[in-house]
């Protein structure tokens, strides 16, 4: 993802990313409770106001831009909870990060020729 990653295209949650993404991941962690999910669904902007997201992180969440969320320090295990309130299949999230459409992702990464 960046030259600072030790293994190419592999954003490990190290000190730099954990610091950068802390508020974003904390926001997502809030969706672990029924109360958090209800608040997010009722008024997403108001829910996001509770956390100190950067403008870029906030925009990425609004756009459901999974690649950008990870670039800004989001870790998939946390931000995946957004897909629990706004359903998105995990493979589509993977394809978005790889910069591919779903059929190409399934075929070239996972060796599948159907959309299964």
């Amino acid at each position, binding site marked *: 993802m960046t030259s600072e990653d030790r293994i190419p295209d*592999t954003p490990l949650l*190290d000190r730099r990313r954990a610091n950068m993404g802390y508020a974003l991941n*904390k926001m997502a962690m809030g969706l*672990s409770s029924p109360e958090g999910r209800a608040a997010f669904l009722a008024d997403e902007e108001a829910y996001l106001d509770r956390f100190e997201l950067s403008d870029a992180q906030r925009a990425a969440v609004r756009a459901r831009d999974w690649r950008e969320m990870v670039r800004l320090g989001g870790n998939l295990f946390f931000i995946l909870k957004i897909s629990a309130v706004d359903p998105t299949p*995990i493979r589509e999230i993977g394809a978005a990060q790889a910069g591919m459409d779903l059929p190409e992702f399934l075929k070239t990464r996972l060796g599948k020729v159907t959309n299964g």
Partner: protein
Amino acid sequence: MAELIGGLGTSHVPSIAMALDKGLRDSEEWKPFFDGYAPARQWMAEKRPDIAVVIFNDHGNSFFLDRLPTLALGVADRYRPADEGWGPRPVPVFEGAEDFSWHLADCMVEGHFDPLLCRDLDVDHGMQVPMELVFGRPEAWPVKVVPILVNTIQYPIPTPQRMWALGELLRRAIDSYPGNDRVVVLGTGGLSHQLQGARAGFINPEADREWIARIGSDPTRYRAMSREDYIEEFGSEGAELIMWLVMRGCMDAEVNTLHQHYFAPASMTGAGMVLLENAA
């Protein structure tokens, strides 16, 4: 004294849980995966372990980044299924092997492993899925559990060598535990997968098959690999495989691989299992 009756290495992919919850067990996509676990399930039914020690990682469900233990040990008498965002899954509450857990806590600290001790802990798919794969979905689980949670999410994660040493310590704890309990050890996670970054969707079936074939008979290479080696070969989340080393380190040097199974991809993950017994 308690007896170690076997070791199971298995994936804990959440889509396995979703497939079960949606009634897809016998679907075209999933049947071959689940069928491959039948011999292990049969073995559990015949061998009737009393205690299952389950080594897994929490996936941002029980622990957050505000305070994240490298190593945690459950010492509770029960563990509820965690709410991972979709509400708790309809699996039975896990009964904890509280006495063994406290014995293990003593052994760990005296052996210079210092875990966070957890007496009020929800457990996520990392523990639920392996249990469902080998015990099905009973009214109540037929074994008591001991959860050992390893941080594999935030770096630095522990080394593969440390995981092996933890397995050796776990063996001493089992061998020194008074009573006649029959103990099975479940090392979980993997196999190859990567969920994050431009390399998302990376799987390595060739390396996975090699792992399945050799983790019992010849684990030397895997024991020596670095964390970076694991990430390169198995993907960033595939590095969860270090938790199988706790199970393998717990077993004798010489083991019999009774059953093995591999299936890819389960969702975005190479998935499978091995079942080991000590050779003697």
